[in-house]
């Protein structure tokens, strides 16, 4: 059947194929810089041959499909790497900022102020009756309090911002989840007809990559081309054409950072990657540093006040606090089922304070136990009666019925250290009230009490270390944490770059390659056109036979 018409057909198909292939090539060139774009190739196949006169004749070329050059394994690898990278990145950024705030290497931070504070106590001891030295002590203690306040403000703002950012990222996750669900639907609709939805898949992969930079995801593709996306190793965010909404909910255990909830599961402790995990990790470090600093400030207030109140000022007064005394903070746990309220937290004997945190737990509407949450020891227990004072370890408070009674499972938190770095302030304003003397008759030359106060610098009153050592440990621990995170980030960045490179090597567009294939296809097109004109001339010759 090898007719001239069939040659014309072959030429026509060749022209069309080349044209299609050029169109694919130009699509590749156009998307050379599109993030997540996988290069496409026109898959050409010879058409089915026909048998004629005992011979098999080829019938030209056809374009069977436009394939997307992509490696599913690489894509998954890249997602995991991105997830870890953005975790280390966001954690590292946040911790470095905190490090900048408590970096004492400039010599102006808490440790320098602490040294200056104790030094000025020595100066008062050297010259106990002098007004000037006493004023300097007050000013140095105010500066020290100011350093604590700066750290408090920073941590408070950072945690607030983090909580807002986490909520914002949850919205982003929800938006991406909805888009993936949409694409799932479109892809399966396209592919049901047997065509590959190349560009839609690229878009979906890019969205998944974006999602994995926020939290760790696992992706499972089903047989109709739709993907199910599981987040945090547990609940699904996208199942085929449906997506779930992630929400941010008040966390009864953590008043700073909300719970990230998906499908009723709190993900905070389950996430293992992504910037959300990085932010949660950084928030935990911020909280640790704050707790440690609170303990340090509270101990300083307690120790200095206890010693100071034993001494006598130049005006003969005694029993005065040097710093504002500690405040006992009380709060109910958000999820309390009962209706009782807690109030009236007060320090009754500052020398008995343990500076640990406590929780009042109700086992029934009428019985409570108080647990020291730092040691897990039961401090006291009793029968509840509305409005009666509960006191132990130098502090007291009152629990009263409000709109109802307490219920089993109710918990109330009690802490004398909470907010210590925010509340610390010099109470003494009159330098003559500084109690340098150890006796009332020793005024003005007695400096014995001030010598003991100055000695607090070297007393191991804080977890068996001095104030300076304790603070240095906070700085060093943070330094180690930052260094570790930075190292991990750098290592992960190299890994990610390598994976990205491997992916780009397979799926990326090479301009040179495309340019050459453009020339090649152009030549093929010209050749096919030549075949057509040759066949046409042959037909013409045939028709001209008379």
């Amino acid at each position, binding site marked *: 059947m090898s007719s001239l018409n069939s040659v014309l057909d072959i030429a026509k198909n060749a022209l069309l194929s080349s044209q299609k292939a050029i169109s694919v090539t130009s699509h590749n060139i156009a998307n050379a810089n599109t993030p997540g774009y996988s290069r496409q190739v026109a898959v050409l196949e010879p058409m089915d041959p026909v048998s004629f006169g005992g011979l098999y004749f080829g019938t030209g070329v056809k374009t069977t499909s436009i394939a997307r050059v992509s490696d599913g394994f690489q894509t998954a690898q890249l997602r995991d790497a991105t997830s870890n990278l953005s975790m280390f990145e966001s954690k590292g950024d946040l911790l470095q900022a905190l490090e900048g705030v408590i970096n004492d290497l400039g010599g102006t931070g808490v440790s320098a102020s602490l040294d200056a504070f104790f*030094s000025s106590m020595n100066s008062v001891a050297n*010259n106990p009756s002098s007004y000037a030295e006493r004023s300097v002590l007050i000013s140095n203690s105010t500066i020290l309090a100011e350093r604590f306040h700066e750290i408090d403000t920073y941590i408070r703002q950072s945690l607030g911002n983090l909580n807002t950012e986490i909520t914002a990222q949850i919205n982003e996750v929800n938006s991406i989840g909805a888009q993936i669900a949409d694409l799932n639907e479109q892809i399966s609709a396209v592919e049901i007809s047997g065509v590959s939805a190349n560009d839609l898949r690229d878009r979906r992969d890019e969205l998944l990559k974006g999602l994995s930079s926020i939290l760790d995801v696992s992706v499972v593709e089903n047989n109709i081309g739709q993907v199910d996306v599981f987040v945090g190793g547990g609940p699904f965010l996208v199942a085929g054409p449906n997506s779930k909404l992630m929400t941010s909910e008040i966390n009864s255990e953590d008043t700073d950072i909300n719970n990230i909830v998906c499908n009723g599961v709190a993900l905070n402790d389950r996430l293992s990657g992504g910037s959300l995990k990085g932010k949660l990790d950084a928030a935990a470090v911020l909280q640790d540093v704050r707790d440690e600093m609170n303990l340090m400030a509270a101990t300083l207030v307690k120790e200095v006040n206890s010693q100071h109140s034993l001494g006598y000022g130049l005006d003969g007064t005694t029993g005065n606090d040097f710093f504002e005394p500690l405040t006992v903070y009380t709060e109910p746990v958000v999820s309390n089922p009962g209706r009782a309220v807690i109030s009236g937290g007060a320090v009754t004997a500052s020398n008995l304070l343990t500076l640990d945190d406590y929780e009042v737990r109700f086992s029934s509407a009428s019985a409570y136990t108080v647990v020291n949450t730092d040691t897990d020891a039961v401090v006291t227990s009793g029968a509840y009666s509305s409005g009666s004072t509960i006191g132990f370890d130098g502090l007291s408070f009152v629990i009263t019925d409000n709109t109802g009674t307490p219920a089993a499972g109710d918990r109330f938190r009690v802490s004398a250290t909470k907010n210590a770095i925010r509340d610390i302030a010099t109470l003494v304003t009159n330098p003559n009230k500084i109690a340098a003397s150890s006796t009332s008759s020793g005024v003005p030359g*007695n400096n014995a009490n001030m010598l003991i106060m100055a000695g607090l610098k070297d007393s191991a009153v804080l977890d068996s270390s001095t104030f300076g050592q304790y603070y240095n440990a906070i700085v060093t621990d943070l330094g180690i944490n930052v260094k570790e995170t930075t190292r991990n980030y750098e290592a992960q960045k190299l890994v990610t770059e390598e994976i990205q490179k491997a992916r780009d090597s397979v799926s990326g567009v090479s301009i040179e390659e495309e340019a050459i294939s453009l020339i090649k296809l152009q030549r093929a097109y010209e050749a096919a056109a030549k075949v057509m004109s040759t066949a046409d001339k042959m037909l013409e010759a045939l028709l001209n036979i008379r």
Partner: protein
Amino acid sequence: MRVTHNITYNGYVNDLTRQQERLLGLHKQISTGKSVNAPSDDPVKVNTLLTSRGLLSSVSQYDRNADSGLSYLGIAEGALSRAKDTISRLSELAISSNGIIDAGTRANIAIEVNNLYAQLVDQSNTTYDDKYIFSGYETDTAAFTSLGAYQGDANAQAIKTGISTNVTIGVNGGEVFKGVGGGVDIFGKISAFVTALETNDTAGCKTAIDDMSSAFDQVSDAVADIGGKVTRLNALKSDYSRISMELRTVMSGIEDADMAKVISDMQLGQAAMEASLKSAGRIFATNIFDYL
């Protein structure tokens, strides 16, 4: 490996970023002169550094305490030396009063002794920075009345010279001039001497020789005591300066940048950066479409 469009550009950007980061780090070391600029640069070193700083601050304060103690002791020593001179003159007069002299001469000596008495009261009321140095803790009260009654208390001020050591720098006037706690009541003895002179009591005048001599010894002992404390404080001060020097050496070893190394690293880094910029320029200038 297929080298694609994005590999070339991303690779270049990543490498350039890394080089810039490195140069920035070196620049920071050069501009601050410190090799450790944040705790995470070297957490272990930073711990040593902060601990050393705390120690240095303590030692500097002890040094200032010792200085303040030394000037206090200096004033006390001066006052007691002058008191010694006064008592030494009284001894001379005690000896003269035992010579073969008449009641009129003794009465004349009594006048001088009275003057010396007043002088000694003044010396015992020496002040430093408006504080009576021999009154114990009662630094705003004169140590002695003109009648020689001690108005201070039995204490002496101390300064902090170490984590758990204090040095007493106060000299208690009660002990030195009144012999509180077992000693000679110098003012009492002088009064007795005056009485003896005025009543022409030769036995009393004889006793005065011994009395004045033990008074002299008592004040001398106090001066020697001060000398001992001054020596101790000076020894402590030289300890402090040695410790500070050692601490500074430790700190400098930890935090100071090795300039020679940093600068040569910087030059190497710059050269590498220029080379990669140049090579990138070549690569990007080459375009296949120029040849087709």
